[in-house]
C-alpha cells in the first residue's frame, strides 16, 4: 500500500512539472556506476557464498559462485574447530579498549596542540609527526625488549597500553579539527567560568563527533586487523586474536586450507566493522549539524 501511494505521489510530482527530457548522460553514468558497484561487490558475494560451501566444493574447478547445497554447519564448525569464540572476544576487548584509549589520549593531546601557544610547540608537533615516519619493524625489537623486561609477553598489555599514549596520525587529524572550531564558543565558555579541561570536555569534544568517529573507526580497524603485534607478544592460543587465528588456518602446507571456514571467519570478522561504520555514520551527520560551520 505504502509503495503504491508513493508511486502515485511521484507521478503527481512529475505531472505537475514541465516534462524534462531524459538526460542520457545521467542514465548512462548511473548504469556505469551500478556496474562498477556490482563488480566491487563480487568478491564480497563470493566470500559469503563460499562460507556456505562444503570443503570439497571449494576445491572444484570451475569454481561455483553459488553452492550446490547450503552447509550452515560451517558457522557452527568454526567455533569447535578453532577457539573462535575466545579469539573473537579477545579481539573485541583489545579493539574496544584501544578505541576508548585512543579517543581519550589523542583528543587530549590534540586539544593542547590546537589551542595553546608555548615555546617549542611547533618543534614538539614536528617531533610528533616524525614518529609517523617510523615503520613498525624499525621499533619492533627495541619495543619487544622493553615489554619483555616489564614481563608483559603473553599478556594483552603490549597491545593496549600504547593506545593510552596517543597516536600521531590521530592527534594530527584531531588537531586540525579542533583548530577550526570557532573561537567565540570558547570565549563564551570562559565568560561563564568554565575551566580549560571543562571546555575540552563540554565544548570541543561534543562538537567533534565527526572527527572523533573517524578516529574511532581508524583505531578500531587498525587494532582489529593488526597481525604482527599480537603474533609477537601472544604465545598461548587462548590469548590469540582473530587475525592470528585466521592466519593460522592457512598456515599449514601439510593440509588443504579450509577455505570455507576461512570465509565464515571473514564474514563474522567483518560484522563489527560494518556495525561500527553504521553507528559512526550518524555521528558524521550530527557533527556537521551541531557545529554550524560549513
Amino acid at each position, binding site marked *: 500500500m505504502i509503495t503504491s501511494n508513493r508511486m502515485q505521489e511521484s507521478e503527481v510530482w512529475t505531472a505537475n512539472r514541465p516534462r524534462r527530457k531524459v538526460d542520457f548522460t545521467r542514465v548512462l553514468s548511473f548504469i556505469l556506476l551500478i556496474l562498477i558497484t556490482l563488480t566491487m561487490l563480487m568478491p564480497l558475494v563470493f566470500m559469503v557464498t563460499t562460507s556456505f560451501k562444503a570443503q570439497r566444493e571449494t576445491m572444484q574447478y570451475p569454481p561455483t559462485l553459488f553452492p550446490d547445497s547450503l552447509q550452515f554447519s560451517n558457522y557452527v564448525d568454526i567455533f569447535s574447530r578453532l577457539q573462535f569464540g575466545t579469539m573473537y572476544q579477545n579481539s573485541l576487548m583489545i579493539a574496544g579498549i584501544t578505541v576508548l584509549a585512543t579517543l581519550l589520549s589523542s583528543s587530549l593531546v590534540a586539544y593542547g596542540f590546537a589551542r595553546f*601557544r608555548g615555546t617549542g610547540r611547533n618543534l614538539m608537533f614536528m617531533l610528533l609527526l616524525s614518529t609517523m615516519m617510523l615503520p613498525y619493524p624499525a621499533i619492533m625489537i627495541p619495543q619487544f625488549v622493553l615489554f619483555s623486561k616489564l*614481563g608483559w609477553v603473553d599478556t594483552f598489555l603490549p597491545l593496549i597500553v600504547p593506545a593510552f599514549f596517543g597516536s600521531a596520525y590521530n592527534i594530527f587529524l584531531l588537531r586540525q579539527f579542533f583548530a577550526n572550531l570557532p573561537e567565540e564558543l570558547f570565549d563564551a565558555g570562559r565568560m561563564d567560568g568554565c575551566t580549560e579541561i571543562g571546555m575540552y570536555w563540554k565544548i570541543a569534544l561534543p562538537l567533534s563527533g565527526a572527527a572523533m568517529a573517524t578516529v574511532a573507526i581508524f583505531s578500531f580497524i587498525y587494532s582489529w586487523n593488526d597481525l604482527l603485534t599480537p603474533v609477537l607478544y601472544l604465545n598461548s592460543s587462548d590469548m590469540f586474536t582473530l587475525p592470528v587465528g585466521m*592466519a*593460522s588456518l592457512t598456515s599449514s602446507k601439510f*593440509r588443504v586450507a579450509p577455505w570455507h571456514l576461512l570465509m565464515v571467519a571473514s564474514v563474522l570478522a567483518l560484522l563489527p566493522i560494518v556495525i561500527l561504520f553504521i553507528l559512526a555514520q550518524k555521528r558524521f551527520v550530527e557533527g556537521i549539524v551541531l557545529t554550524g560551520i560549513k
Partner: protein
Amino acid sequence: MVNRKGKWSTRMLAVVSALFAIAVMLSGCGGGNSSVGADGEAVTITYYTIDSPDRTFVEQLIPDFEKQHPNIKVKVATAPYEQFDSKLQTMIAGGNAPDITSHFGYGGFAEYYNKDMLLDMTDLLKQEGFDADKYKIPKNLMDIYQVDGHTYGIPFSSYVTLLLYNKDLFDAAGVPYPPSDYNDKSWTFDKMVADAKKLTVLSDDPNKQQYGLQFGWGELDNRPFYFGAKMYSDDTWKNGGMPSETYFDSPEAIAAYKKIFGLVFDDKVSPPSEWSASVAGQGGDPFVTGKVAMSVGGSWILSGANDFGFNVGVAAVPAGGNDKVRSTLFVDPLFILKDSKHPKEALTWIQYLLQTDIQKESIELSGGTPPVNQEAAEDYYAHFNTIDPKDLKNVYEGAYEYGYESFNHLIANYSQINDMMINEMQPVQNGSARVEDVMPGVQKKMEEILARTKK
C-alpha cells in the same frame, strides 16, 4: 587564542601522570614468568611451533609427559607460518628465546646454524646416553643435521618426495598404474612422460582440460639434481651450507631445465603456471581439483588425501638420470636453541616425542604426520583410506634409499636464493624466454648472493 600555559601545564601534568599510573598499575598484572629451577623445583621449557592443528597437537601430549616428569613443565608458543621466523628472531633478540623448535618457517637448518642460534648437542647427547637406535631413527637421517661430526638437531618427522596419482583418471584412460617399487627398472622419466601424454586432454573447454603430470620435485634450484646435474659444489654439504661454487650455467643444468620446462611447452603434458593458478588459486595445488593425473611432490599432499574427491595411489619417483638420488627428503629435526637455560630438560622432552608409542599417537593426533621412528611408520603407511599400505611403505623405503635432504634446509640464506630463482625463471615459466638465455644471469645472481652471505 589566550595563552594559559601555567594553568594548563599543571593539569596536563596531572592527566599524564594519571595515565602513567594506570600503565604502571596494569603492568602489575603481567610479569612473573621466570622459570629458574633449583633442584626439586619445577622447570618450565618452551616449545615453539606453527599454529596449525598438525603441529599444535603436542599440547595434548603434555599432561602425560608432565605426569612422568613432575619437575618439567612444557609451554607451547605458536605463530602462523608466515610470521614464524620473524617472531623467533624477535624472541631471541628480546632475550625470550624458546628452548625447543624446528625450522617450521621459511628458514632452514643452515640459516639457523649460520646465525649461531643452535645448541651443539653432541656433548649433551653423550652425557645423557642418547641412542638413535632406541628410537628406530635410520642412521642416514640422523646424519643430516650434523656438521663436522657435531649434532645440531634430532629428526622427528620425515616427508619424502613421491609420485601421487589419480586412480580415477588412470582407469578412465585405461593406463596401468605406475609401480611403487624403486627397483622396477622399467619405471623411468621417459616412461612417465609417455604415460602422461595418454592422460592429457587438451581442449578449449576448461571443464574438459586435463593434464598428465605436474613435476614439483624439490625447489627450482634443486630440480636439475634429479637428472644428475650438480648445482652446488660438494663442500656445501659439509661446511654448514656455504657453497664455494655453483654451476647454474653448466650444460648439464641447462639440459635439465630444458627437460623440466619442456614438459609444459614441448611435451605439453604439464599445466602452464597460469592454468594452475586459475584452477587452484595462488599457491594452491591443481592436483587436488582432480584435473591432473600424476603429481611428483612432497608427501605432505597426502595429509588431505582422505578428503580428496577421488581415489589416490602412490608410486615411486621414476629414475631420471641420477643413479643415487630420486627423492628429495624433508626431514624435520628438533633443535635446542643456544639460549636455552634448560637444555637437559629440553632433551628429555625431545626423547619423549620420539618414543614409538608417542610417535604412533602423533600420527592420529596430527592427522597424518610421517614419523621418523621406523616402527611407528608402519602405522603411518596404513593411515590413508584409498592407499595400499604396501605401496606407501615401498615408496618411503625407496625414498630413504635414494633420498637426499632438501637443499632448502641445507644451504645458508636459502630464502634469498629461492626468491631470486623464482624471479629469474619467471620468463621461462611463462614461455617468453629460453632456458639457455636465462641461466648465465641466474649464475651471476647466485654468485652475488653467495658473496654477500660470506661477509
